[in-house]
């Protein structure tokens, strides 16, 4: 009886310790993410300061520059007549209110512009991430299990090839081949001209069309998505294949795999029960790797496909040297990236208790 209560108490105690470890882990990650977010605003502010010449001229469109009231309002809002630290506080205050500045090209708030472009990007990035994670896992596992043989060599060279291909070039090639030569793909954009966008629910045309029961529109949207998703997936898949291959090779060297084989388990069982399970935590890593690769990729890919997403907005702002918009995109993407990394870290903590202790 005594023993049992002692045992019981020690179990309770242990779970409390674990819980507090988890809590500490979560709080630490939150603090790090908050620090990075604050740091990224410093980077943004430094870049605003780095712009040569008059900040008013660099940020306002020509039309607004001719209007003394607009110039005065801009100076007051960003605290341009105050010392630098106060300017930073004004900048931070504006950011906290969601004010990333005004685009010179569209004359609209950068954040509003960005939010308009987000659904189109999600519509590309989500399927591309799923495709790359599935392909990356399958191909990477295949290569690892045939280490050193012809299949492995082919995969390694293929993965290097994928990593070495400029994505914007691949986009041009894909359009040339599938639209111009074969005629099986539309020439960029989100929908063919004969269709109008479905009623907005999620902002993703394919999904919204399905929700509205417009099957023909949904099918047309999917056809428009296919090519950019493929291009985005090539580079990401190549990254993931290399990652999965080396991760699996590491697990294959572990004693428990040798033990599983030694006790006569069939290869299939070892593969599914031991190998894949050991790799589950890695899937989280892969998704975040894929996500990072996509964020960079969309900037280079979307514009070729006339895809009105965040990447195309970044491209348009860059080629027009629309500085408020470029800096806004940069901060926005960094914020998304930091939040995703935070989510990934937290998932790790839940999936693998050992990580909480670090």
């Amino acid at each position: 009886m005594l023993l049992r209560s002692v045992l019981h108490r020690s179990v309770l105690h242990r779970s409390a310790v674990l819980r507090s470890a988890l809590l500490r882990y979560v709080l630490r990650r939150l603090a790090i993410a908050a620090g990075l977010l604050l740091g990224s605003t410093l980077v943004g502010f430094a870049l605003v300061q780095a712009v040569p010449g008059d900040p008013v001229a660099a940020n306002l469109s020509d039309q607004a520059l001719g209007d003394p009231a607009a110039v005065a309002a801009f100076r007051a809002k960003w605290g341009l007549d105050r010392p630098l630290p106060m300017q930073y506080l004004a900048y931070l205050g504006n950011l906290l209110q969601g004010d990333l500045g005004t685009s010179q090209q569209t004359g609209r708030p950068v954040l509003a512009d960005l939010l308009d472009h987000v659904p189109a990007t999600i519509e590309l990035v989500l399927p591309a991430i799923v495709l790359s994670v599935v392909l990356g896992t399958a191909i990477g596992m295949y290569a690892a299990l045939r280490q050193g043989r012809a299949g492995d060599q082919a995969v390694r060279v293929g993965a290097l090839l994928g990593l070495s291909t400029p994505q914007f070039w691949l986009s041009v090639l894909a359009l040339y081949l599938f639209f111009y030569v074969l005629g099986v793909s539309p020439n960029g954009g989100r929908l063919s001209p004969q269709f109008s966008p479905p009623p907005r629910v999620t902002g993703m045309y394919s999904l919204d069309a399905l929700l509205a029961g417009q099957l023909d529109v949904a099918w047309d949207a999917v056809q428009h998505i296919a090519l950019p998703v493929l291009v985005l997936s090539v580079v990401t898949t190549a990254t993931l294949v290399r990652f999965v291959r080396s991760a699996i090779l590491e697990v294959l060297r572990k004693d428990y795999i040798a033990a599983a084989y030694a006790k006569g388990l069939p290869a299939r069982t070892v593969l599914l029960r031991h190998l894949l399970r050991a790799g589950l935590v890695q899937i989280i890593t892969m998704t975040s790797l894929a996500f990072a690769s996509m964020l960079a990729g969309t900037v280079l890919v979307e514009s070729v496909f006339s895809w009105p997403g965040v990447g195309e907005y970044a491209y348009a702002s860059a080629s027009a040297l629309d500085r408020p918009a470029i800096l806004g995109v940069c901060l926005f993407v960094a914020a998304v990236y930091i939040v995703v990394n935070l989510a990934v870290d937290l998932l790790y903590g839940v999936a693998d208790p050992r990580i909480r202790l670090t």
Partner: protein
Amino acid sequence: MRRPLVLIALSVLGAWLLLAVLAGVVSPYDPLAQSADTYAPPSAAHWFGTDELGRDVLSRVVHGARLSIPLALAVVVLALLLGGLLGLIAGYVGRAVDEVIMRLTDLVFAFPQIILAMAVTAAFGPSPANAVLALVIVSWPVYARVIRGAVLGIRGENYLGIARMLGVGPITVLRRDVVPNSVGPAVVLATLELGNAVLLLAGLSFLGLGPRPPAAEWGAMIALGAADISKWWVSVFPGLAILTVVLACNILGDAIRDRFDVGHR
């Protein structure tokens, strides 16, 4: 990676270096000379065809090597110097200095590289020099971390303590003992990063933030080709140039990494 592949990669890089040096001699036309013969497909007179201003694509691709390769080398060398110096200071001085420098590397890692590079170039104004500066700013942290790790690894070694006891000044200790014993992994890393630098540079130019037109830069040439995809030769050849250079760099980098076992982020 197999030996023949490494040899092929080395010869591809060698060939590109040679082309870059001899660009003025081997290219059949002036890369900037316009002609009435616009959008001519590949032919005996123009092996790679001509672009929308009638410029010879082959000559432009060859001259592109003169821009891309030195600029990418500059990025890698400058990032190695800057990152190396900061990593050295962080590892050797330690404490608050270390903390500040390492938090800076975290901060740079919080941005996707091409996007931060885009913002930096845009802020300073688009030019080749600023593109290089931007890429140095986004790529120094890897070197800083590697050098810092190496310095931490040798900080407790006896020879450093003895040198200090003998009255050797800290700068001399750094120069004579710390640097030679910690720089190896970072130099290996630099070869790994060369291909990445070529790709990022081409990406910036594609965005219109690299060398300005009419300069013959590979990324910018692809951007021109993207305007009319039916004229495939305008973008296919500069793209192949990037692909071959980057692939060769990556094959070499992989071989070197297998040999020296250097971590990569």
